[in-house]
């Protein structure tokens, strides 16, 4: 049973694409007929500064325009943020935390202030390098949040993303297959 309103918080660093990932999630969930919000919260405008982005997903029209303080899910795009940001702040114990890391979950847990919910790790760098040959964490992180939150089925997600990439990378077909491979690898690895 998926909740009526799902709230997601993304942590990344300026230039890494956490905002873009939040907007991509809004895009793909929109295609399932739901109401969506995807928005960034900016501090000082500079590369590398911690940035936060948010998603709300609902079956009803979304009117609230505040940041999200009690998310159901948190996605950490850059694990170096653990030392700067309390990523589990307000995070629901019924929800989950998704971290982009090559490290073992046990090592990650010491940064989580005793968070009692589910924790998932995904090595977006390895997946991205293997599928695209370059490090773009967006596609793996997007697939990870879709899988963990269950906002849509794997099949719907993949077919919507295929269409989206075909539109976005009309002139670069090689990138389409790489990104699709990154999505599929992530869907299989996250469990």
């Amino acid at each position: 049973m998926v909740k009526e309103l799902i709230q997601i918080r993304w942590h990344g660093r300026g230039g890494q694409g956490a905002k873009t990932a939040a907007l991509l999630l809004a895009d793909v969930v929109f295609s399932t007929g739901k109401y969506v919000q995807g928005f960034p919260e900016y501090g000082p405008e500079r590369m590398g500064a911690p940035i936060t982005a948010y998603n709300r997903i609902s079956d009803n029209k979304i009117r609230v325009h505040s940041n999200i303080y009690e998310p159901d899910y948190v996605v950490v795009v850059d694990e170096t943020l653990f030392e700067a940001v309390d990523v589990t702040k307000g995070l629901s114990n019924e929800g989950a935390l998704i971290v982009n890391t090559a490290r073992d979950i046990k090592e990650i847990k010491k940064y989580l202030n005793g968070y009692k919910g589910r924790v998932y790790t995904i090595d977006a760098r390895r997946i991205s390098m293997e599928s695209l040959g370059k490090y773009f964490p967006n596609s793996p992180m997007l697939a990870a949040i879709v899988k963990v939150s269950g906002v849509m089925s794997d099949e719907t997600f993949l077919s919507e993303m295929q269409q989206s990439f075909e539109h976005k990378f009309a002139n670069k077909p090689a990138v389409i297959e790489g990104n699709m491979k990154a999505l599929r690898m992530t869907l299989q690895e996250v469990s």
Partner: protein
Amino acid sequence: MSIRDRLSGNEAVAIAMRQINPDVMSAFPITPSTEIPHMFSTFIANGQVETEFIPVESEHSAMSAAIGAQAAGARSLTATSSCGLALMWEVLYVAASNRLPIAMALVNRTLSGPININCDHSDSMGARDSGWIQIYAENNQEVYDNFVQAYRIAEHPRVRLPIMICQDGFITSAAVENIELLKDGEVRKFVGEYCPDSYLLNGKQPLAVGPYAVSAYCMEAKRAQLEALKNAQQVTLAVAKEFAVLSGREYGLFEEYRLADADYAMVIIGSAAGTAKDAIDKLRTEGKKVGLLKIRLFRPFPGEEIANALQKAKVIACMDRTESFNAQCGPLGAEVKSALFNARLMPVVINYVYGLGGRDVTVESITSVFEDLIEIDQTNDAGDKYRYLSLRE
């Protein structure tokens, strides 16, 4: 039939502009409105519109170029924010007093300092007495709909004044949300062709724009300008009525939300209104009689209608997203209290300053305002009538 889409507020405005296909856009980039000229110039480069784009070296020049183009007979527009609007200051008055129906997409951002890129209303509130029509939006849908209606109001023969279509910087301008778009042809037909009576490029009717007015005429010119601005109120309603037929979405001078029987009312502008609606629904389930009046048209200010809508409220919160530095009220507070006084209504009015420089507005912070109002009513003690919301101690 509308087109279901998901867009940021900036994208929505850029698309409205493309659908209108105006004649001239002059603009200088500034956060958070940069995306609008950025996207629109892409439409121009792709041949999707026939608009002439004038890249200028400052906002003063952007407005000056829009004035020149509009006076020449071209439907013109620009987009800006914050210090960009401040730099247009001098020429905003020139656009209004010369009765040039330019449209401006204003993405509200605070004025420096401290330097900050986020939302408050200090930019447009500072320009409230420049003679422009001002219309505000709660979300991407409203800013799109308002922009589609803008030229119909501004260019109306009884109005002929420039119009500012405002939205909250980042909060709606950068947030992607669901939206219902009209078809290109529907918008183009609704807005129609721009056919000014008199314009500089009409060789058959020589014309002076912006000449000196001696003291014997200057005051009459201002009075005539006021009449045009007052007319904008009825025209705004008439255009909204036509727009509702086209879109199914209804607009007025302001929106009332659960206000009819409310003892405790909030008057607010912009994106925080949506957050307030969620707070109101929760408080209503607890039996609290709370309601909202959301300003749409701020210039001209529909004072009589607003006083009428608030006549049953016992305690009112006026929410100002700017500091007026007069030590007693903000611009919205001043307008609402003046309207109530003229209607001989004397409710307790508490003026809150909130959301400066992007300070977040939450369901909880809005709820605390209503709790204040209820307490004031129960204790019969208004306390400080000029307060700051969510201020860190």
